[in-house]
């Protein structure tokens, strides 16, 4: 797909790529030895630049990649990594939350229940998807689907991609906090294998609200955090401009979270990020999710529940003094 959004730190790369295209065009029109040499030099330079840029991405740069508007979203994965997706709507009480699609899906021949946050790419889509920020109805629909998965012995796959649960008046009036909290409690007891993948933004409680699962995986450039880097910067540095420092301090990257023991695995992305190759990214996600489901399916429901409990029970670092 064409990439419309150019990230600040990628600008020199884009410039070099454009120059290269230009030279190649010229060389095709009127080949010369001089141009051929220039092209070879620029190709070499670009390769080095790409290597330097992408091999040492800062946490803040990864946050930008995680938010890239050309990044594959939940429904892109539903198309590319799954054989089919049959969407099921509504929480049976208030309405249907389009920021949290869900339904039946098949992945590599295995039938599952798929839930996740869905963002929009343009204004019209974002109006429908509310920028991937779900209301209480979304969390309640997700739980309804997870319970159905339990009832009909289907594994659950949860794709997390939200800046956070929606901080709006209606959300507060319909108890968004309770909707998340209730999911945290109930997910601990769902007697079926559950796998979550943070595919983009893992924004705080809104992410965790569908993230209490047996396996928690992360895409290489996704982030998962208690607070947005901007929010943290606004509180600690009194200014959102310090978001890059906050992103580092929060240890929100997949690599940091793996080291902290919070996530179980990292799914590799193509060079530059998932938005450069949706198909390859989806294929990698498919493999990891299928492997996780295959492993978890070997366990009894009792084993699953006790391992899930122990996994989350162990989180936290402290000391015991006399």
């Amino acid at each position, binding site marked *: 797909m064409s990439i419309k959004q150019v990230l600040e730190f990628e600008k020199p790369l884009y410039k070099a790529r454009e120059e290269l295209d230009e030279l190649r065009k010229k060389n095709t029109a009127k080949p010369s030895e001089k141009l051929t040499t220039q092209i070879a030099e620029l190709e070499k330079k670009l390769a080095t630049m790409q290597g330097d840029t992408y091999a040492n991405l800062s946490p803040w740069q990864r946050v930008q990649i995680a938010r890239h508007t050309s990044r594959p979203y939940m429904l892109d994965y539903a198309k590319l990594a799954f054989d089919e997706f049959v969407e099921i709507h509504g929480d049976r009480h208030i309405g249907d939350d389009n920021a949290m699609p869900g339904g039946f899906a098949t992945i590599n021949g295995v039938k599952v229940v798929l839930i996740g946050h869905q963002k929009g790419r343009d204004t019209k889509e974002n109006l429908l998807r509310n920028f991937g920020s779900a209301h209480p109805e979304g969390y309640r629909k997700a739980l309804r689907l997870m319970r159905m998965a339990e009832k009909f012995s289907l594994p659950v796959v949860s794709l997390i991609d939200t800046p956070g*649960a929606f901080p*709006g008046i209606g*959300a507060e009036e319909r108890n968004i906090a309770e909707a998340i909290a209730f999911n945290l409690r109930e997910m601990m007891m769902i007697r079926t294998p559950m796998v979550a993948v943070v595919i983009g933004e893992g924004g705080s*409680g809104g992410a965790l609200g569908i993230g209490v699962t047996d396996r928690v995986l992360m895409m290489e450039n996704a982030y998962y955090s208690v607070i947005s880097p901007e929010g943290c910067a606004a*509180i600690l540095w009194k200014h959102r401009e310090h978001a890059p420092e906050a992103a580092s301090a929060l240890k929100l990257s997949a690599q940091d979270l793996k080291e902290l023991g919070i996530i179980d695995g990292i799914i590799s992305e193509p060079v530059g990020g998932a938005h450069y190759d949706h198909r390859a990214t989806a294929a990698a996600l498919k493999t990891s999710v299928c492997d996780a489901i295959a492993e978890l399916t070997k366990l009894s429901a009792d084993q699953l529940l006790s391992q899930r409990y122990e996994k989350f029970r162990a989180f936290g670092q402290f000391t015991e003094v006399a």
Partner: protein
Amino acid sequence: MGIFSKRSVNDLGEKKKDMPEGLWVKCPACGESLYESALAKNMRVCTHCQHHFTLSSTERIESVVDEGSFEETELQLDSVNALGFKDYLGKVKAYQAKTGLREAVVTGRAMIDGQPVVLAIMDFRFLGASMGSVVGEKITRAIELATKEKCTVIIFSASGGARMHEGILSLMQMAKTCGALARHSEAKLPYISVLTHPTTGGVTASFATIGDLILAEPKCMIGFAGPRVVKETTHADLPPGFQTAEFMKEHGLVDMIVDRGEMRATLSKLISYIQKSKAAA
């Protein structure tokens, strides 16, 4: 962590020492000058307008349990700087010195009218009672203790939310505490959540809102997002009383609003309905 515009979170009262009779406190709600000793005797509720001042965990314990019955647990847990967050432990130490507490929650066994309970009391004075690993662990251990001893767990919440300085570890305390409550609930044991001023963010979005019963002190602020964030996101005028206990009761989140003076009797009454009597067992 929430940012509050409505009601000051630090309303312990402005202390005036210029009066010869002793300490006076000015009520932030009605402006009346109150005798510190009279205020203390009245559970720090304004004798003029019924404004509920913030209580320390010690004062809270005294206000609800049978005299001398409180036995503190898990006092030994102390914070570490898992993320290497700048100045974090210095901040924790400063609050330890200031409050005399080791962390933002106090837990323990107690009796209410002779009925055994496990209590967890968040103390807003300690770093906004934000939830990091120690707070999450102490609350989880309190719930587990109540499950083991087959009694009611009562959590008095007050919090600015998850503690930023411990990053994702703070977020995971939400899942951990709710997990312990899942097991407690499965054992058909009671959990009463009491919301006090202010209960927000990750605490509201975890254990605070999934009590079998949810009580709240009058006019306390209860919310997921801070009102400023809601206003900035929606560009709308907030409805009157937005995110107060009364508003939340109207919207079905809170079971009862209970005056501080009635809290102990109310808890005792509720426990008598939902906890199997030890004497009868």
